């Protein structure tokens, strides 16, 4: 069972569903009702590409309670190959890393993958979504 907060975001988190402005071509992730670029309200369905590069990143050493078991967590802003930007965790890293700057570089190519994000609340409901890994 999933909580409403989680299941309403499934199209974005499981399938990377975005929308694209019919007027100016801007891609919005998550999908929007008003284009922030041109103000148009007409969109077509669009799915994000799954490869891109790291624009910036950080290693969060003191994450919120739900992420305590995973710490430290590495997060990045990724620019996908169509220019759309998303934030996501960087996954599939070695279990212990002395200096993250040596393995993660700004500009490094990545691909999006499907992963568990965390287990929510006392009931521990698993919530899933996208992360990226270095390629």
């Amino acid at each position: 069972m999933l909580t409403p907060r989680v299941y309403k975001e499934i199209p974005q988190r499981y399938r990377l569903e975005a929308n694209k402005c019919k007027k100016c071509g801007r891609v919005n992730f998550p999908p929007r009702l008003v284009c922030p670029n041109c103000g148009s309200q007409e969109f077509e369905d669009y799915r994000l590409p799954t490869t891109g590069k790291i624009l910036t990143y950080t290693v969060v050493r003191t994450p919120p309670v739900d992420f305590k078991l995973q710490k430290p967590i590495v997060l990045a802003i990724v620019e996908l190959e169509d220019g759309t930007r998303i934030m996501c965790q960087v996954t599939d890293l070695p279990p212990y890393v002395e200096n993250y700057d040596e393995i993660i570089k700004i500009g490094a190519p990545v691909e999006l993958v499907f992963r568990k994000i965390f287990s929510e609340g006392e009931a521990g409901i698993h919530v899933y979504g996208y992360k990226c890994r270095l390629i």
Partner: protein
Amino acid sequence: MRDVAVIGIGMTKFGELWNKSLRELFVEAALKAIKDAGVDHIDSMYVGCMTSGLFAQQEHLGALMADYLGQKHVPAYRVESACASGGLAFRLGFIEVASGMSDIVLVGGVEKMHTGADSTACLAAAADAEYESFLGITFPGLYAMIANAYKEKYNIPFDRFRKQLALVAVKNHENGSKNPNAQFPIKITVDTVVNSTLVADPLRLFDCSPVTDGAAAVILCPVELAKKYTDTIIKVAGSGAATSTIALAQRDDITYLDVVAKAAERAYKMAGVTPKDIDFAEVHDCFTIAEICVTEALGFFEPGKGAEAVEAGKTALDGEIPVNTSGGLKAKGHPVGATGVAQICELVEQLRGTAGDRQVKNAKRGLAQNMGGSGASSTVHILEVL
């Protein structure tokens, strides 16, 4: 529109105040401001507060604070814009007096952060809940991403950049050591910062503003009326506010706080001044990198030159544009909803010439910049002595 003056200020000591409640903090600051102004009543009041609901399970702050301040029946408004709640509350109070709707308005800001709640999670509510906080990102993490992008964009070697960031904290603690209301009135060195624990790479504990309880309040009235209460008329010469994308990833340039530039542009225009006309400034140094980016967006330095400016001492108390004379969020403390109002208190202290050991010489015009989230909202106010 009428000209508006700040005629009274008051704040609590900032700190880890386990024995003081949300309402006690607000009322203490408000009473000090009312006494300082010498007014016998207020026409309306504003309460800036970010997230008393998450921290203390208390909303409905307008009514609560008016009740406990002994202001039954006075209209009261709670204003929220994350960490810019205080600055935005001040702007709304200013607008109410300027419009002629009310003559004497109290603007307070408050945050009670030591309550047992997970403060990192409470503060994360200021980010995009589904596309940022959901991923485990924290505010130190968001600003750390800005820092890494800045270092990359301006091609600064890591060691030099690390020291530049540290120097912001060293300077603000130097100023804060002269502020009796500061949470951490202690001097520190670059070594203190670079040897402190990592929070979100490259930011360390001493790059981050602390978790703070505290409140601040001011009294506003028309300039014409202010003459009845004081000889030193401090006018609100300019007010600007702006918003930008809630999510950092959607920002055109991650290293440039467009929201600050836009709010500043509006405040400068209203005041009829340029960045060069500002004598000193209180800015939103929630993290060391934030002060650097803010001073660039305010137009004090060119984009990419803010870090060098700190290194060169340009923002020190005796520098060309003293920044965060109060100790800033870093040393004075950052009770998020109170910060914007506390910045105004510091401006008034400096303009009155009552800032003691941290007094800026010939301070005639000051600027206060308050910011919410990772740069999604901001206010800029310019105060000057008439």
